[in-house]
């Protein structure tokens, strides 16, 4: 019995070189196999050598693929309406996806604008916002860049901070980074003019210097070279501008765009802390380093953790953050906190836009199906002439590819436009400065769009391709229009579309309602008629003593001014930012942070916050007298659940080594909202300004008229009191409250846009199906009319079809929504995810749209002329 060549090898050969050529090669090999009397190894080697045949250039662009594409383009060009509809649907779907992806990309993957960004590492500490103290940083820097076990070619420290920058009298809060002197060396970012920082700039007593961003240079100095050497005032200090950062460099704290950099040690608070040799834990910083050549990330991480432990042992401390150090290539937002907040929002947005794309795909599939009905005959003829089923299916796939490619290109353009719009309309975050989000389209976005297009093409051509490949030959050739199965399939598509878009619409309605609901949340204090002005009364103009005197005079003057009902002073501005302090109820206990504020007597009257027990602060609470505090309900019930808090002791201070301050609780204030309307109840503690001086305060005025109109008179009044007084933004409390809801407003607007888009796309789909059924049934309608049916009956017949499909879709959509809406629960401010109003409103809206989408084809059906319709026979 003759030996046979290995079957698996033959199979592989047939895969490698399909068709007749493969057969020929197999024949050759068989012949030789027999003549040489076997040799499986030889046979396998020969088969594998056929990869060369597979890869030969003219086989890669197989002539029939080219032919398919050519034919597809021709067909699509002959039907411009159909092509355009399909491409625009896809472009909308791909466009919104690439827009959202661009945003996600910026937040997570966009590398820093520095040379070799993949060697720049972000060092983070698990469970901690910062990494270490500045002193520890210096120790780290010394150890990890030492010539022996060199891990990093450079290690730098930074911290991003809001900086109030004075330019020609008006102060503005911008984002800046306070950095170690080697900042630019580590990042390898050259200055485009002037210089970056030098080690001398860190020495105590050196002249404070600053580097401006390209944008700040343009806006504030008109790109004039004379900016170098100019002085800008940051709070109390003058900084000399020594350099301009290159264009495109916005710092290392995305998504925030930096406008200014200063040496870390030139911040007054940092200098003060660093002057105290006993202080090891503050000021705290973030770290970034550039890996030394040849060092691998994981190895560096492990080594860094060892260094961390060594430093801890060398410099023991009481309050320890125990989290391990981690190392990651810097990309996107380096702050783990930002990533944590951004991740769920990104996932939500991407799934929402994914659904929009899915709906668009279903639309195109529907279009292709209706085309397939038209082309049944053509396909049947081609099959009868010998085209294989795969060949026919491939023809449909080729059309899909051409459509998807067109859609992707259009979609990218559409996405760029949407990015511009989005970048402009991103609400400014209060006290955080500009968000950078350049929203540039890069190769990652382009690849994403291409993958999305490819996936959609496969998705929407899958079923039509199957459909094309098995026409019932005889019936199609006869021109029979039977196709109930296909009709049913299209109905299912429409139902799915309606259901999906209804789900998005319900989500959007829910979030919009939650936003309205949030605006009605009781802040716990009076907002109407009140406005807050932020003023600076500190060194060098004021000492604490002269500042107190000035504030007393200021309050007297403002209270006596016409149109002012009352006025008060606090450190924080309600609903824009809050401070915190360390508290404990025994001197031994580890201190915990509680939100805090510093206020003057009368604050609770002006803000209409009721004191539930005890008393308010009074003029008798002075630096010399016993320290007093007022706590809120949450604080009182947390620490003294069933006791009277009045007279209890609170220990203040974060440093466990030094003795903490003892203060007596003299009053309990009702809970209020402190930082944003949507926050959970939090522990809060008030201290009197007289006992805890701060030089940066909010003057809160209760004006009898419209608070917004009082802004200018207030500014004039303050100017009269002290022409040099620095006054920052003046804002009504209502505006601050609505600003604090930026997150929900953002989600609501995006969801509303996407929900609307999904509905539009699904409506187009519905219209297509109803219109197609009208076209199919023209003859039947003609017969009915000829037999005496009323035109209204025909209208109703068509409408009923559209509305029936919609009703089915709505039913599915409602069930689906009931299941998935609980995922949104966290963003709804306590509103039920099954809010009946949202469900009803969204369903009714869809019904109305469905009515419109079916009415247009229904009217066309009503106008059918029976004579013309019957002449088709």
């Amino acid at each position, binding site marked *: 019995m003759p030996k046979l060549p290995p079957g698996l090898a033959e199979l592989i050969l047939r895969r490698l070189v399909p068709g007749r050529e493969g057969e020929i090669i*197999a024949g*050759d090999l068989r012949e030789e196999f027999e003549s040489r009397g076997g040799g499986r190894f030889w046979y396998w080697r020969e088969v594998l050598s056929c990869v060369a*045949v597979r890869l030969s250039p003219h086989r890669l662009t197989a002539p029939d693929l080219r032919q398919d594409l050519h034919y597809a383009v021709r067909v699509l060009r002959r039907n411009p309406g159909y092509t355009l509809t399909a491409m625009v649907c896809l472009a909308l779907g791909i466009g919104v996806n690439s827009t959202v992806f661009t945003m996600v990309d910026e937040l997570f993957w966009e590398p820093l604008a520095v040379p070799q960004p993949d060697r720049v590492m972000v060092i983070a500490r698990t469970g901690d916002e910062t990494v270490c103290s500045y002193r520890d940083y210096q120790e780290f820097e010394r150890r990890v860049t030492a010539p022996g076990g060199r891990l990093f070619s450079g290690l730098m420290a930074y911290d991003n901070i809001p900086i109030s920058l004075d330019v020609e009298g008006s102060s503005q809060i911008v984002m800046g980074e306070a950095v170690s002197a080697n900042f630019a060396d580590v990042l390898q970012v050259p200055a485009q003019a002037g210089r970056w920082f030098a080690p001398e700039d860190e020495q105590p007593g050196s002249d404070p210097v600053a580097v401006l961003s390209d944008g700040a240079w343009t806006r504030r100095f008109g790109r004039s070279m004379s900016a170098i050497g100019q002085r800008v005032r940051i709070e109390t200090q003058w900084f000399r501008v020594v350099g301009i950062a290159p264009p495109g460099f916005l710092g290392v704290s995305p998504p925030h765009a930096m406008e200014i950099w200063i040496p870390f040690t030139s911040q007054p608070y940092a200098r003060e802390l660093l002057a105290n040799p006993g202080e090891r834990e503050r000021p705290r910083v973030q770290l970034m380093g550039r890996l030394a050549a040849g060092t691998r990330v994981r190895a560096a991480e492990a080594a860094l953790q060892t260094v961390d432990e060594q430093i801890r042992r060398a410099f023991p401390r009481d309050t320890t953050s125990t989290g391990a150090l981690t190392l990651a290539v810097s990309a996107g937002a380096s702050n783990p906190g930002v990533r944590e907040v951004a991740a769920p929002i990104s996932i939500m947005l991407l799934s929402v836009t994914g659904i929009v794309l899915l709906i668009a795909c279903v639309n195109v599939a529907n279009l292709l199906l209706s085309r397939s009905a038209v082309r049944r005959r053509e396909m049947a003829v081609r099959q009868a002439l010998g085209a294989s089923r795969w060949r026919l299916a491939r023809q449909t796939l080729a059309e899909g590819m051409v459509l998807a490619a067109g859609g992707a290109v259009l979609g990218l353009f559409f996405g760029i436009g949407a990015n511009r719009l989005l970048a402009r309309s991103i609400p400014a975050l209060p006290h955080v400065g500009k968000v950078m989000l350049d929203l540039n389209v890069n190769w990652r976005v382009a690849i994403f769009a291409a993958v999305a297009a490819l996936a959609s093409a496969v998705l929407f051509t899958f079923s039509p391709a199957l459909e094309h490949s098995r026409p019932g030959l005889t019936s199609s050739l006869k021109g029979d229009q039977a196709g109930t199965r296909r009709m049913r399939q299209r109905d299912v598509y429409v139902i799915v579309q309606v259901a999906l878009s209804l789900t998005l619409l319900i989500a959007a309605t829910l979030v919009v309602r939650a936003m309205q609901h949030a605006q009605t949340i009781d802040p716990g204090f009076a907002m109407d008629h009140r406005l807050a002005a932020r003023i600076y009364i500190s060194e060098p103009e004021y000492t604490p003593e002269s500042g107190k005197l000035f504030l007393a005079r200021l309050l007297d003057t403002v209270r006596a001014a016409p149109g002012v009902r009352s006025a008060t002073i606090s450190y924080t501005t309600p609903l824009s930012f809050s401070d915190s302090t360390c508290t404990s109820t025994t001197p031994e206990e580890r201190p915990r942070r509680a939100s805090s504020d510093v206020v003057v007597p009368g604050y609770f009257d002006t803000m209409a916050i009721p004191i539930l027990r005890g008393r308010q602060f009074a003029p008798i609470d002075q630096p010399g007298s016993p320290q007093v505090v007022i706590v809120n309900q949450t604080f009182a019930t947390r620490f003294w659940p069933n006791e009277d808090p009045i007279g209890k002791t609170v220990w203040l201070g974060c440093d466990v080594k030094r003795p903490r301050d003892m203060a007596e609780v003299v009053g309990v204030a009702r809970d209020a909202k402190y930082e944003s309307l949507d926050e959970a109840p939090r522990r809060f503690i008030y201290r009197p300004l007289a006992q805890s001086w701060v030089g940066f305060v909010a003057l809160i005025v209760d004006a009898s008229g419209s608070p917004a109109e009082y802004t200018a008179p207030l500014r004039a009044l303050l100017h009269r009191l002290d022409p040099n007084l620095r006054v920052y933004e003046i804002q009504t409390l209502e505006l601050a409250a609505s600003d604090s809801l930026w997150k929900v407003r953002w989600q609501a607007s995006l969801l509303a846009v996407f929900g609307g888009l999904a509905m539009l796309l699904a409506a187009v789909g519905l219209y297509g199906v109803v219109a197609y059924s009208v076209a199919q049934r023209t003859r039947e309608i003609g017969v009915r009319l000829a037999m005496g049916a009323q035109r209204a009956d025909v209208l109703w017949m068509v409408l009923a079809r559209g509305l029936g499909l919609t009703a089915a879709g709505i039913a599915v959509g409602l069930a689906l929504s009931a299941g998935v809406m609980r995922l949104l629960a966290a963003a709804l401010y306590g509103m039920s995810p099954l809010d009946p109003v949202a469900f009803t409103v969204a369903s009714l809206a869809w019904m109305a749209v469905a009515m419109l989408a079916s009415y247009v084809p229904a009217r066309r059906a009503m106008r059918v002329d029976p004579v013309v319709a019957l002449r088709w026979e």
Partner: protein
Amino acid sequence: MSDQYLGEFEQLVLLAVVRLAEGAYGVPIRREIERRTGRKVTVGALYSTLDRLEAKGCVSSRFADPTAERGGRSRRYFRIEPLGTEALAHAKEMLDRMWKGVRLA
């Protein structure tokens, strides 16, 4: 077409096709080259070259009837085309010109 350039292996394959005349199909072409040059030729290299030569228009091929000795598969016979003859002649002429007057020690 004088700019038609033939690689060395392409020349060998073309010459084998010419030598075999009517009997030029995969198996003998390979044997011919192996016997005369001592080089091992894989089937993949051979067919990718033949495909390329066909695409250039140097050879043409036809499919013969299936035979039992090949497991019921047919043979693909190759024939040189005028373009191939011209390209071969051109290649030889080029080599001859380069060799003219060259004497290796």
